[in-house]
């Protein structure tokens, strides 16, 4: 009989857990603690960037390719800018873009998913078609087309991410809404006179957001990668803004003069990506009812 209880729906409908307890369990998981630690480091780095004495963009041709030392902890780049400073500023860009773009994708996904799930059949069909169409376009193609059109910028990167991830989230939301739509508690709320907005925001979204957040956490490293990749290709954040991708790109051009540029651009990408991946995995374990502590 156990297999008749679908774990996914059971998790959605039956067993909301206290956030506090979840946090405790998350931290007690070594992977989760490590992930959280790495993310905290990244965030602190982003916050601390402004405290540093060096300017991230001002050229200083006197000290090109300086080796790491007391003055420049990670050395300087081809234009004499302090690499450590640029790396920390890069964290700002990376976090703003990855989190901003992910939140935006989530919102877009929720909006269209709820509309499709709750709306009339025809609307559902149209939206579904749209989502699938979006998903079938390869990311790079999408990025190329869009950026040729708008020109490279931070916003273009966010837009690409939203167009890539939004439809995926929307599909997931739609499926969950369909499962909830006939649930008796939704009926009960309607019987009390609750309107669509209230039902959607208070009773539907809170019940489907959990799995979605986990997914989003696991998507963030990918977004960091997309940003770095696009910037690397010169399609993302424009120089001289210090994005990890641009640092990395420049680093490759001057790899024979100094390897520190590659380190300053590559290492943080690895750290952040690992941090969010670990956190996502741990989150999934925490919320997955099959693995929940009995």
């Amino acid at each position, binding site marked *: 009989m156990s297999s008749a209880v679908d774990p996914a729906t059971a998790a959605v409908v039956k067993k909301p857990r206290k956030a506090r307890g979840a946090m405790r369990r998350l931290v007690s998981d070594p992977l989760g603690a490590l992930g959280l630690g790495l993310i905290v480091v990244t965030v602190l780095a982003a916050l601390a960037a402004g405290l540093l004495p060096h300017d991230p963009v001002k050229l200083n041709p006197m000290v090109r390719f300086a080796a790491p030392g007391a003055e420049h902890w990670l050395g300087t780049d081809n234009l004499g800018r302090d690499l450590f400073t640029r790396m920390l500023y890069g964290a700002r860009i990376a976090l703003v873009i990855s989190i901003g773009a992910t939140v935006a994708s989530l919102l877009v996904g929720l909006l269209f998913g709820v509309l499709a799930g709750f709306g009339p059949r025809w609307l559902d069909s149209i939206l579904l078609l749209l989502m699938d169409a979006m998903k079938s376009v390869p990311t790079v193609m999408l990025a190329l087309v869009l950026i040729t059109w708008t020109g490279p910028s931070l916003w273009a990167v966010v837009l690409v991410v939203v167009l890539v991830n939004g439809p995926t989230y929307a599909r997931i939301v739609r499926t969950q809404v369909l499962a909830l739509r006939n649930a008796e508690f939704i009926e*009960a709320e309607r019987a009390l006179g609750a309107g669509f907005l209230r039902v959607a925001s208070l009773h539907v979204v809170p019940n489907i957001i959990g799995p979605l957040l986990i997914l989003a956490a696991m998507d963030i490293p990918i977004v960091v990668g997309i940003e770095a990749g696009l910037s690397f290709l010169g399609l993302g954040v424009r120089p001289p803004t210090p994005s990890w991708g641009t640092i990395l790109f420049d680093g490759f051009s001057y790899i024979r003069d100094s390897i520190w540029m590659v380190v300053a651009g590559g290492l943080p990408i690895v750290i952040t990506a690992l941090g969010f991946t670990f956190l996502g995995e741990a989150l999934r374990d925490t919320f997955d009812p099959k693995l929940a502590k009995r």
Partner: protein
Amino acid sequence: MTPLLSVRNLDVSYPVGGLMAKLRGADQLQIVAGVSFDLARGETMALVGESGSGKTTLARAIAGLGGLVSGEIRFDGAPLNTSGRQIRRDIAFIFQDAVSSLSPRLTVRALLREPFAIHGIQYPEGEVERLLRLVGLPATIAERRPHELSGGQARRVGVARALALKPRLVIADEPTAGLDVSVQSEVLNLLNDLRTRLGLSLLIITHNLNIVRHIADRMAIMYLGRFVETGDTAPVFAHPHHPYTAALLSANPIIDPEARKTRLYLKGEVPGLVRRPKGCEFHSRCPFVQDLCRSTPPSLREDGPVSYTCHFPMEASVNA
């Protein structure tokens, strides 16, 4: 005085999916057929009948909660306006599945505040505690979530929610299922209190014939979406006319082994709604079926306070 609720010739159908159904022109499945009744202020009517006979469908249609409805429903003398908000305050609905009718992420406190919040009503101080006391739950339960309640506790939260806005008609779908007999008495006594104090009308759907006998003024027995018998409770129990009523009443599980012997068993398959039987719709399972039943639907007949649809009603002695 006009009855609080008046239902005439009510049909309720559900759309059925599938292209084939559409092509055949059979894209609607009629669940409730030709139901008429009145419910006076302060009256309690019990709706009993086969599972799947359409009791919930009928109740939901009356509360404007779904189904394709044709026929007439009047509330307080005026045609029922199902799209308005006022009806949600006037008619309260207690749902059949206790736990799954409570929004899973909300605490009991939030659940009990919902009705006030939805209607933008100033929320009285200590109301949650008062409502919980009303249904016999300790105040400590207010911070729990539905999955942390027992079935019976969830049921009582549902009752409290329904009563929060002082409705005029309470439609209760199995309000005591999952309650032990003592708590069941408390919930029924509570509904009965409100009925006498506030003149509330009650439409109670239940499978528990024991409580029908005690608390209902009138009862209606449903089979395949139709009322096969209606009338004052005591006479119906004393002398069921329709064979289905007789079978239903005699099937009530009882403690005394002696009393079980007079049971009237129904044979055959429960017919589907897709292919309703011709003639009397009960004929495929009726122990007393005759040729007439297979061909001609019986018309409504009356015997004092009881009306029924059967060609060959039961004798008074069978179950008295």
